């Protein structure tokens, strides 16, 4: 390869890194300019500086961390319960035909119903309690993880199972090691999808009525015409789910450690 070509490649690489670093600041700058230019209504479309002030106020008022905690709690606990249930039932339906015949038709009927559609009945069942919000997140996460695990278990290399059988592997170890780890690459994909689903359902859960939470704060701000606060809330939610997705991706890469 010629040095010229090499240099050109490096220059192009540097340029794209530079442009990438400028992407978000440029967007914020253009937004600020447009919002201040009076082309648009600044009350409905506040500039980033107003949003930043609103976010600082939110933090200073002490409500921010309460809201963050409330939302994080719902997402995390709901995710953990839903995925644990999904993995356990997926192992059972994937491995035991009878359990699958019993549960799979039911799950396949319930799975396509968007979790948000359950908000009205959840309010009737749980009122505005925390349990109702957890229920929605659990419900949203469960089916995805169940299906991923179910398929993963069925795709476990039969040769591995036979080899394990020939070595005298006890039934419990067969399920907890050979089947679970054999299905792990599929399960991890299901879990990653479940991370974003848990945020979708969190929005539905908090809009349905809550006393704290990031989406709840967005809704209150909307009712008071505090558009800066609304956008600040959106930014916080975006950042939160971005961090969650990225950290899960990093964990997922290490979860299948033998690759």
């Amino acid at each position: 390869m010629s040095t010229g070509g090499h240099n050109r490649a490096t220059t192009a690489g540097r340029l794209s890194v530079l442009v990438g670093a400028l992407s978000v600041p440029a967007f914020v700058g253009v937004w600020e300019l447009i919002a201040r230019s009076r082309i648009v209504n600044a009350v409905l479309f506040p500039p980033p500086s107003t949003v930043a002030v609103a976010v600082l106020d939110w933090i200073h008022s002490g409500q921010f961390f309460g809201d963050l905690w409330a939302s994080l709690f719902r997402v995390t606990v709901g995710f953990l319960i839903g995925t644990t249930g999904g993995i356990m039932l997926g192992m059972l339906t994937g491995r035991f035909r009878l359990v699958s015949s019993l549960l799979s038709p039911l799950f396949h009927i319930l799975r396509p119903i968007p979790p948000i559609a359950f908000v009205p009945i959840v309010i009737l069942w749980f009122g505005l309690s925390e349990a109702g919000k957890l229920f929605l997140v659990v419900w949203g996460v469960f089916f995805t993880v169940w299906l991923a695990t179910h398929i993963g278990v069925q795709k476990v290399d039969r040769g591995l199972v036979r080899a394990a059988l020939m070595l005298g592997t006890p039934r419990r170890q067969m399920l907890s090691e050979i089947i679970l780890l054999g299905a792990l690459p599929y399960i991890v994909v299901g879990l990653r999808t479940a991370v974003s689903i848990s945020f979708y359902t969190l929005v539905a859960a908090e809009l349905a009525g809550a006393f704290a939470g990031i989406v709840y704060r967005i809704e209150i701000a909307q009712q008071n015409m505090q558009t800066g606060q609304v956008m600040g809330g959106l930014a916080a939610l975006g950042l939160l789910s971005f961090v969650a997705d990225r950290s899960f991706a990093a964990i997922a890469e290490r979860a299948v450690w033998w690759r």
Partner: protein
Amino acid sequence: MVAMMHNPLRPTSPLRLVDAPPEPSSAVPEATIRVENLSIVFDVPRGQVIAVDRVSLAVMPGEFVSLVGPSGCGKSTLLNAMAGLERPFEGEVMVAGKPMLAPRPDIGMVFQQPHLFPWKSVRRNIAHGPRALGKSRTEALRIADDLIDMIGLTKFASAYPHTLSGGMQQRVAIARALANQPRVLLMDEPFGALDAQTRAVMQDNLLELRDRINATIVFVTHDIDEAILLSDRVLIMSAGPGRILRDLSAGLPRPRSSAILTDPAYLALKRDCLDLIRTEGRKAFEQMETVT
């Protein structure tokens, strides 16, 4: 005989073609493996297929027996029945005097694919069996380390399977099967997926290994050279439904090397075997027998 051990190239090697039907197994009660009138039937969309048809055979303690036949002749099914992975439709399989109804840890198996646990290192793969049978971690790892030395993979003890070549993986699979010190070692075309050079090395390794372990070995292959080189006895199976067609005592001296492959007597035997297999293969191709 003794003199010949030093020169396996001598053309006088007593290769015999014993054309005898399988003997009634009651005559050999001390056999390690006894298959009696075994039939195995598979369900297919339109009826049933007989994979193994009334097979009887006996394998004596310490013997190395190869099952050879055209693909689809039921030789792997027969081996799976000896492993307890396939239930008899009729007849029975006895190993060490007990009927085979499920896999047993005193019977080891090596498959065509290594089927190593991808999440375990070489060492832990080999230690899996002893651990599953309740041995302590230290004990299991000591067994594994001994076997790793034996298969010459000491440098790769903590490597993961996907980093190893096919031949190395298969050596680990053999070591893993030996870790439970099985009475019987079943091998289902273990070198079938390897290239010719690796295969030759693996065959030599197996010959060496055989003298160091006490297992009775049943070896499935479609490679007649491999069968004659490795075994004490070669059973040739007919096209499906699988039956034992010939029982050939190779009668070659041990220790052996691949040098016998050019021995004229060996070549004559091989020609007979190949003719037999070719006829059978053609039959298998022409008849797709289903029974409803």
